[in-house]
C-alpha cells in the first residue's frame, strides 16, 4: 500500500507591487530576507521618511476634503518640539498637528527618524508638498489610498521551476490618489492639469489619472528606478481597470516630493545627470535656475529655485495606453515568475543562498543589513571574498 503524497496547499500567491515586486528588483537576496523571512530592517529610516510624507499628504487631504470651509493655502507648519507638548492653540490644519498623528503611528510601529535633522527636513518637504502640490492636486482627487487587486497568469515555461505553486498570482497595490478629471472642469492654471495636457495632447471626455507620491528625488533616466516607476503606474492603471465602474486611465503622475525641497546630495546628482544628459527636466539656459544650478557647489547654500522649476522636476506624467500597460504588466509577470522559481528551487534544495541572486545597486548594497555575508555584493563581479565585519 503506497502512501499518497501530501497534497500541497492550494495557493494563489499574493504579491504587492511595491512591497514585493519592486523590492525583488532592487535585490532578490535582500527581498528573500526582508519579505520572505519578514526580517525587519535594522534602520527603518527610509521607511519612516516615505511613510511620513504619505501620511501627511493623506491626512492633509482628509482634512481638506471634510472641512467646511476649507482652510486656505498655505497651511502653517509648527512641528512639535521633541519631548515637549504641542504648541498651544495650534490649528487643526497646521502641518505640525497632522505630522504629530503620523509620527505617533510610526513611533508605535518602531519607526523613528534617524536624527532631528531628518525630521526637520521631512517637515519642510511635507509642508512644501501640501502647500505647493495640494492646491492643484486636492481638488482633482476622487479617491485616496485606493486598494486595487487583480489576478494574472504566471508566465509558464523556462522561467518556472517544476514545483511552481500556482499558475496564477494575485497582484495588490494601493494607489495613492485616483483623480477623476474632466479637463474642462479643472482650473486652467492647475499645474497638474497642464502637465497632463502637455504629455497627453488631444484628450477629451472624462477619464482618470493615477497619482503616486514618491519620497525620493526624480531618478536619472538611466537608472532602473526610472523605468520601474513607469511600470508601476502602468500596472496600477491595469489594476484600476479591473475595478467595476472605473473610468479609462489615460495617465499616471509620479510626484517626486524631494524635488520640492532638494538637499545637497540631490543637487550633486542633478548636476551629474544634467552634464551627462541623463535627466529630462533641466532649467532653461539663461534662466536664474540654470545659473543657480551650474554655479552651485556642495559647500554652497541650497539655491532658491523657482516654484515652476521645482514643480517641473517634481511632476512626471506617464501617458498610458493598452500597449504600454501590456508591456509593463508583462515585466512584472516575469518578476513574479522569477520569484516563484526561487521559491521552488529553495524548497527542493532546502537552502537559501544559492537560489536568490544578489543584484542591488551600490546604494542598496551599502545600506543592506545582509551585506556582511553576501557572497556577491555590488559590483557583482563574482570576485568578492566574504570578510569579517568590523565593530561596531
Amino acid at each position: 500500500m503506497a502512501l499518497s503524497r501530501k497534497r500541497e496547499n492550494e495557493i494563489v500567491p499574493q504579491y504587492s507591487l511595491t512591497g514585493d515586486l519592486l523590492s525583488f528588483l532592487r535585490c532578490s537576496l535582500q527581498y528573500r530576507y526582508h519579505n520572505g523571512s519578514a526580517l525587519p530592517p535594522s534602520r527603518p529610516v527610509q521607511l519612516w521618511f516615505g511613510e511620513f510624507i504619505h501620511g501627511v499628504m493623506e491626512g492633509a487631504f482628509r482634512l481638506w476634503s471634510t472641512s467646511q470651509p476649507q482652510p486656505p493655502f498655505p497651511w502653517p507648519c509648527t512641528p512639535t518640539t521633541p519631548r515637549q507638548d504641542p504648541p498651544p492653540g495650534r490649528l487643526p490644519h497646521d502641518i505640525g498637528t497632522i505630522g504629530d498623528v503620523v509620527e505617533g503611528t510610526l513611533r508605535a510601529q518602531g519607526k523613528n527618524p534617524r536624527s532631528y535633522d531628518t525630521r526637520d527636513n521631512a517637515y519642510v518637504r511635507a509642508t512644501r508638498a501640501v502647500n505647493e502640490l495640494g492646491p492643484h492636486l486636492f481638488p482633482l482627487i476622487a479617491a485616496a489610498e485606493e486598494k486595487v487587486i487583480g489576478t494574472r497568469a504566471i508566465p509558464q515555461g523556462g522561467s518556472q521551476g517544476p514545483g511552481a505553486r500556482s499558475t496564477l498570482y494575485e497582484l495588490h497595490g494601493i494607489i495613492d490618489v485616483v483623480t477623476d478629471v474632466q479637463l474642462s472642469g479643472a482650473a486652467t492654471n492647475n499645474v497638474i492639469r497642464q502637465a497632463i495636457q502637455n504629455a497627453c495632447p488631444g484628450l477629451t471626455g472624462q477619464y482618470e489619472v493615477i497619482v503616486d507620491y514618491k519620497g525620493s528625488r526624480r531618478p536619472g533616466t538611466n537608472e532602473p528606478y526610472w523605468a520601474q516607476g513607469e511600470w508601476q503606474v502602468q500596472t496600477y492603471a491595469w489594476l484600476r481597470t479591473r475595478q467595476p465602474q472605473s473610468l479609462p486611465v489615460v495617465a499616471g503622475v509620479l510626484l517626486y516630493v524631494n524635488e520640492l525641497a532638494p538637499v545637497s546630495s540631490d543637487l550633486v546628482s542633478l548636476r551629474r545627470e544634467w552634464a551627462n544628459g541623463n535627466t529630462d527636466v533641466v532649467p532653461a539656459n539663461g534662466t536664474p535656475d540654470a545659473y543657480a544650478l551650474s554655479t552651485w557647489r556642495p559647500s554652497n547654500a541650497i539655491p532658491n529655485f523657482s516654484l515652476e522649476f521645482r514643480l517641473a522636476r517634481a511632476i512626471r506624467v506617464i501617458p498610458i495606453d493598452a500597449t504600454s500597460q501590456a508591456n509593463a504588466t508583462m515585466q512584472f509577470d516575469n518578476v513574479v515568475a522569477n520569484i516563484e522559481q526561487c521559491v521552488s528551487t529553495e524548497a527542493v534544495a532546502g537552502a537559501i543562498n544559492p537560489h536568490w541572486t544578489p543584484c542591488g545597486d551600490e546604494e542598496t548594497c551599502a545600506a543592506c543589513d545582509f551585506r556582511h555575508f553576501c557572497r556577491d555584493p555590488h559590483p557583482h563581479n563574482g570576485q568578492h571574498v566574504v570578510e569579517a565585519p568590523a565593530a561596531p
Partner: protein
Amino acid sequence: MIPLTDFLPLVCAAIPRFQAHAPNPQQQRCIQHDPTTPLMIVAGPGSGKTTVLVLRALRLVFVEGWMPEQVLMTTFTRKAADELRARLIEWGLLLKAHLAANPPSGSASFNNWLDSIDINRFVTGTLDSICEELLTTFRNPNEPVPVLVEGFVGNGILAQRALFPNQAHNDQNLAAYLATFTRDGSPPPNFGETVEICRTILDRFVHDMVDIASFQSAGNHPQARSLLVAAANAYRQYMADGSRMDFALLEETFLERLRQGSLQRFTDNVRAVLVDEYQDTNPLQEAIYLTLADRTGASLTIVGDDDQSLYRFRGATVELFNDFPTRFSTELPHLATPQREDLTENYRSTPEIVEFFNNFITNDQGFQPARVAPPKPTIVANRQSNGVPVLGLFRPNATALADDLTEFLIDVFRRGGRIVDGHTIVANPNGGDFGDSVLLAHTVNEFAAQFGATPPRERLPKLLRDRLAAHGVDVFNPRGRFLRDIPQVQQLLGVLLECIDQQGQLQGQLRLRNEAVRHLNAWRQAGLAFIATNPSPSHPHTLATFAQSWQQRRSQTGAEWPNEWPLLELCFKIISWLPFFQDDPEGQVYLEAIARCVAQGATFSVYRSTILRGQGVHDDNSVKRAIQDILAPIAESAIEVDEEIMPHVPRNRFPMMTIHQSKGLEFPLVIVDVSSDYSMNHPRNRFRRFPEAPSSVQNMEDDFAPHCAIGPLRQTRTGLQRSFDDLIRLYYVAYSRPESVLLLVGQDKCLQHRTPIKHVATGWTSDGTWAWITPVVGRSPGLANNIPLRLI
C-alpha cells in the same frame, strides 16, 4: 445572473475537479440553501466544508447577482484564509470564463454584468485581519492608523505600564487570587507567570464581555479584583494613547464602531457573511457577527464542528455554535430562524480510520450531552479501504519506542516499506518522502520541564530527532524547542550579550528572575565557547577581536564610536559567523523571532532597542534596558516562533506538530503520541489525560461566570466535565487527520489490562470505565483484551 438550477451544472462543466465528482447531495443542499435564511452547517472532518463555503459564495455572485466585494468570509488562520481565497479565485475565474464562452442567448447585458464581476474583491481573511483593515480604511479624518501589537509587546506594556505601577509584583492578595488559575493551585512562582495570568484575565474581560463592576464587587478577593481592574484601565489608557491595539481590543473596537454606525460605508455594502470554524468563536466575535447581520441584513452562513472545538483557553465557546439557532433567533427575532444542514461524508480517511474516530467520539456517554443537538449523523467514509487497520506501536519506555518508531519510518520512507497484515506500507514511488507523514502530540517539546539544576528529560520528539539524524534525516519541529534552547540561538545571543555587556557586569545590576539569569548565563557560555572556536571568517579580524572591540567600544574602522547603534544591526553582523542563520530555512524561523523581538522592543523600550555611547548614564541604561526588555523575555520563552513564514517545509524532513497546529490539515500517515511520557499514574500529568479537577481554564470560566452573559451557558457543564470534553475533542481532531494510515504510539504500560494510567486518548471514559478491556474470568491478562488497534 444565471438561474439557480444552472449553477451546479455550471460548476461541474467549468471546474475540472467536479467533472468526475459532483458535490454530494448534502453539499448541494448547503450550496443551494436560500440566502434569506441563515444557515448553520455542521461539518464533520474531511467533509469538504471549504469546498461548500467557496461554492456557496460563488453561487451568491453568479445566481443572486451580488458583487464579490459584498461577500465577507472569515476563517481561523492565515493559512486557511489563503486556501479559501485561492479556491475562490481559481474557481471563480473558471466559472466566469465558462460563462463568457457560453453566454445564455437573448441577454445583451449578460456580458456587461459578467465583466463587472471582479473575483479578487471577495473580502476574505481572519476576523482580526479584516477588522484591522476596515478600521484603517474607514477611520475618521485625523484619526491615526491603528497599530496592532503582538503578545510580547502587549505583555511588556502590561507589565511596565499597568502591573508595576499598581504594585502587582509584590501584592499578596493578587498572588492568592491568581493561585486559582495556576496548574497546581499555588501562587504564580514568578512575575513572568503573574503577567501571563493577568494577560489571560484582561483578554477574558474583553472576549467574554465581562461586566467589570460586577467582577470587582464579587465577594472573594476584593483587593485583587480592584488591582486587576485598575491595571486593566491603565493598560487600556496607554494603548489608546498610542492608538495601539492588541487582538482583543481590536475586535472590541470594531464592535463598538459597528454599533455606532461609523463603519456604515462598509456595512452598507455587505450582503453576505460566511464564517468558517464557528465552533471556536468567542462571545465578542459572536456579537460582531450578529451585529453585522442585524445592521446589514446580510445572509449569514456559519460552518463548524462542535467535536473539533479546541480553543477554549483563548475564550472559544463551543456552546455558541451548538446553540446558534436559538441564540440567533433570541438576539435577532426580526430575522428568519436559522436552518441546519449536516456534512457527514468523509473524503479524507479510510473506512478503518473513520470507524476508529467515530467510535472514539461516541465512547464516553458523559460527553454526548456536550455535542450538538440533535446529534450529527455518524460520519461515513467515502474512500476505499486500503486494508491497513489502525495501528499501535507501544514499547516499555520512550527510548525503545523511539528506536522502533524510527525503524518503522525508515522502513516506510527509505527502505522497501513495512509489511502489516500482508500490506506493505511504503512511501509513494512518485516522490513520496517524510513530508507525507507527521507526528502529532499534545506538546512537541523536545525536553520535559526542568527542575533545579537537573538536566531536563529528553522526550520522544528529541529521541526521534537524534535517531533520525543517525539515518541522515532531519526533523522539522520549530516549536519543539524553546528559542532559548537552540544551540545556534544561544551562540548568537551569547556573543551579542558579551559584546554589549562583558561578563554580565550590567546584567548583574538588574533584578531579573532566576529563570532569565540562568539562560542568559548559559547563552554567554555558549557564545564564549563559540568565539573560542575562531569561526570563519577570521580575516581581517576574528570574532574574538570583534567582540573585544564592542566591549571596549573601540571601532575597528578607526572612526569614532557612534552615539547610538541599533541592537538589530549588531545581531545581523554577528550572523556573519553563523551560516545557519544565513542559509537554512529553519534558521530563518528562529532569526525572524529574534529580529521581531528586537524590532518590537523599539516600540515600547525606552532606548528603542539601541545601544548608546557618550551619553553619560544612558550608555549603561541602554544596555540594561536591552537585556531587560528584549533578551530576558527570550530567555523566559515569551517569544513564539512563526513557522508560517516558511513557504515550504522541505519534504525530506519529518514534521512534528501539536494537535492544535494540525487543525484543518491532513497527512497520508499520521502518528499520534498518546502516552510516550506516561510510565506511571503521576498526579502532575493527569490533567493531560484523565483530569481529576477542573483545569485552570475552567476555573477562570467559572470565576467569571457570574459577571458575563455567557457564564450560565458554559456552566451547563461542570468544570470537570468541560475538562474531559476538551481532551476528547483534542484527540478526535488528531485521529481524524490521516488519509491512509493512523498509528498510535506510547509506552505500553497504558495498555496493561490493569493499568493505573487512565487516558481519554486510549478509550477511558470520564466515569472511570475502559472500553479497551472486557471482563475476564479468573486472572486478568497482562495486556488489555479489547484494543481496537493492530499492534506492531
